[in-house]
């Protein structure tokens, strides 16, 4: 037993150290923070942003006498983040990471590998909790003048809290790996299992949201009553997640009675762990070997060259190559295409659910006065386009356009295809996906708000489309200038990627740009403003292309 624990700890430490070193935030030789690291500064900015938003929320809820809504709501948000992160990472970490081949020959028991992998996953969730979870709860404590006991409880709760969700997702994944026998195609296997896990979560969230909104349809005429109802529904939802309710209660009650909730949390986690250990012990090694060492029997294939050899224009051929590399690779598929589908569905659900609620609120006498001047103007256009911009936040096609090719990206430069054309071809996947996403969102808005004239939708589409192209060009340019070509597993391309963080910065910049456009044109006629906006975007696009073509050799110098 002692030996087993020692092995698990050692292996966990190796994985964690590897993860930390790839972040490069801390220089392990000097033991100092690397202040030149862009990831470090992005975390700092993110922490400030989260602190500010949390402060605003806590202050508002305290003012209206409902501070507990923050605890209930924020734990739910944190739990969903943990589940999503575990879903995305777990299958790769447990079954398809590159290190597995190197550790399988070591004298380690499968369960030791399994538990080390689980610890790594848990550690990654703690990292996320540190960024998203700690400060908001501290602010809550300070603002509500809570005692030292609250902070001690907070640390203990944050340590225990992510365990259960990580265990449950891992157990479901082990079951899915056992049930779905697709080892012949492990890429497809990864996509399908992740899809099923996210689908389960989405169905659950959708059902919960529907339930909350249906109950809110009898909206009450005062804000206090509505918030009470929302709080009740969040508490009800939290109970389904098992670990949220006791965690919230510990921080809410803050006295010695919380031992009962601690006991509840520990029992839940122990049960989860027992199940995980049992099923992992039973199935993990068998699944691991199948996933990593499946040999396809050789068949004598008679290839019909007449059918298989096809001649295409270079643009079409290049695009086909791009799509195949994107769709056949589970990590690329999930990081680009899958994200877009998911976020489009979520935004569409939100539009369908929220717009009718908003209409109902507008009918209430108390609010009628406030909304009487509501009209479709440049501000509304900028909000809709901003919404579309945010939905494109998680499409990583362009930001990994060159990195995806790996260390042989330089081979593209030997092809007799102009570097400018190759740059354009590299953008098409992201532009196509985001355009589809924009069309769906505009259709949803058109269906829910038919008052907006149809011609404005065409104009908004053109603006969105132009912004999608410009954004995609900028993101591909970022990847071209700072490609991550040295990687062993596809997951590494986006893991702790500086470029990914710059993508978020670009979206923030876009929102500010839209805000600026709104301020410039707010006093002008809407039609003329929109045409001027389109003109500005076309000019940006033309200038970008001229400059790119002029400096293409210099821009491609890091692909070598």
């Amino acid at each position, binding site marked *: 037993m002692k030996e087993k624990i020692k092995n698990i700890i050692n292996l966990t430490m190796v994985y964690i150290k590897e993860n930390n070193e790839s972040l490069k935030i801390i220089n392990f030789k000097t033991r100092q923070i690397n202040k030149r690291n862009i990831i470090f500064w992005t975390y700092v900015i993110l922490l400030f942003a989260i602190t500010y938003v949390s402060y605003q929320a806590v202050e508002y809820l305290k003012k209206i006498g409902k501070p507990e809504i923050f605890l209930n709501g924020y734990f739910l948000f944190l739990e969903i983040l943990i589940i999503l992160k575990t879903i995305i990472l777990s299958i790769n970490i447990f079954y398809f990471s590159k290190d597995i081949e190197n550790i399988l020959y070591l004298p380690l028991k499968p369960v030791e590998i399994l538990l080390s992998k689980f610890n790594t996953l848990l550690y990654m969730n703690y990292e996320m909790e540190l960024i998203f979870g700690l400060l908001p709860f501290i602010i809550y404590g300070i603002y509500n003048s809570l005692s030292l006991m609250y902070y001690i409880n907070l640390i203990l709760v944050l340590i225990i809290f992510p365990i259960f969700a990580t265990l449950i997702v891992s157990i479901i994944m082990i079951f899915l790996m056992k049930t779905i026998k697709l080892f012949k195609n492990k890429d497809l296997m990864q996509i399908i299992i992740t899809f099923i896990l996210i689908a389960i979560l989405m169905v659950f969230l959708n059902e919960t949201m529907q339930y909350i909104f249906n109950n809110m349809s009898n909206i009450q005429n005062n804000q206090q009553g509505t918030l009470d109802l929302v709080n009740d529904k969040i508490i009800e939802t939290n109970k389904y997640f098992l670990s949220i309710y006791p965690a919230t209660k510990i921080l809410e009650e803050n006295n010695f009675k919380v031992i009962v909730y601690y006991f509840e949390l520990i029992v839940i986690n122990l049960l989860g762990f027992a199940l995980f250990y049992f099923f992992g012990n039973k199935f993990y090694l068998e699944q691991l070997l199948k996933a990593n060492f499946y040999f*396809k029997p050789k068949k*004598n*294939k*008679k*290839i019909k*060259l*007449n059918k*298989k*050899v*096809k*001649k*295409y*224009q*270079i643009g079409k*051929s*290049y695009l*086909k*190559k791009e799509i*195949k*590399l994107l769709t*056949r*690779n589970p990590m690329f598929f999930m990081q680009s295409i899958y994200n877009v589908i998911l976020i489009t569905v979520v935004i569409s659900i939100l539009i369908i659910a929220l717009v009718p609620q908003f209409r109902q609120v507008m009918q209430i006498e108390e609010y009628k006065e406030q909304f009487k001047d509501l009209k479709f103007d440049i501000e509304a256009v900028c909000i809709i386009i901003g919404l579309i911009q945010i939905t494109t936040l998680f499409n990583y096609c362009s930001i990994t356009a060159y990195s995806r*090719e*790996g*260390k*042989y990206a*330089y*081979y593209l*430069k*030997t*092809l*007799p*295809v*102009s570097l400018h054309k190759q740059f354009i071809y590299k953008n098409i996947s992201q532009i196509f996906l985001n355009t589809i996403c924009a069309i769906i969102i505009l259709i949803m808005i058109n269906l829910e708000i038919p008052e907006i004239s149809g011609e404005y939708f065409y104009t908004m589409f053109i603006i969105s489309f132009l912004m999608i192209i410009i954004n995609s060009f900028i993101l591909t340019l970022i990847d071209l200038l700072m490609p991550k070509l040295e990687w062993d597993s596809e997951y590494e391309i986006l893991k702790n990627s500086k470029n990914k963080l710059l993508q978020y910065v670009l979206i923030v910049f876009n929102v500010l740009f839209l805000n600026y456009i709104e301020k410039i044109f707010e006093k002008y006629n809407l039609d003329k403003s929109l045409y001027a906006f389109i003109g500005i975007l076309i000019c940006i696009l033309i200038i970008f292309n001229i400059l790119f073509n002029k400096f293409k*050799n*210099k821009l491609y*110098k890091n*692909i*070598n």
Partner: protein
Amino acid sequence: MIEIKHVSKSYKKGEKVVDNINLEINDGEIFGFIGLNGAGKTTTIKMITGILEIDEGNIFIDGKSIITSPIEAKKQMGLVPDSPDMFLKLKGIEYLNFIADCYNVSKEERIERIEKFAKEFEIYEDLEDKIESYSHGMRQKIVIIGVLLHTPQNWILDEPITGLDPKSAYDLKKTMREYANSGKTVFFSTHILEIADELCDRIGIINKGKIIFVGTLKELKEKFGDKKTLEEIFLDII
């Protein structure tokens, strides 16, 4: 024909990895580019193929400058990199189609050449499999077929024999000889002297970024000692 004229390259200011090299590789010859690891072989190949920018000088491929007419120059050559782990998610046949589209090879020519070379290199039955399932040798072969599909006038190979089994190495050397005999240029880098001895019409030795010898193996032996082995001469002059 490949002409390298006064070409220099440095990654850091003041540290030239390739220093004012001049080479002329004629049609119909196999030219071996020999040097130790880090001598500047791969950097030179990357400049010839347009992967790296040239700091000073110029390179002409069949009279087309890689700086001013890169597309025209690239159409005249094909590169086999040292470790061809590219486009792994594509099937062999898809990769060949893609390369043929880049070089605008007609459908009839593709069918004929794919059939010929894939059978010759014994990977015809693997064309429907993804490249990721191929062994190192098979990956090398599919890239070689990709190059031969468009029959470039200049064939450039970076350490081509490394990692190949004896049979594949023999087949490749045979193909290189046939290619040169058909009037085309074969330029390859290596640090294995036996291969240079066996295969090359002329060799160029590069050391610390400078060309220290260009000529036939006979000339090399005459100049540096007739009775010494190629290995001894090489170690003497670097």
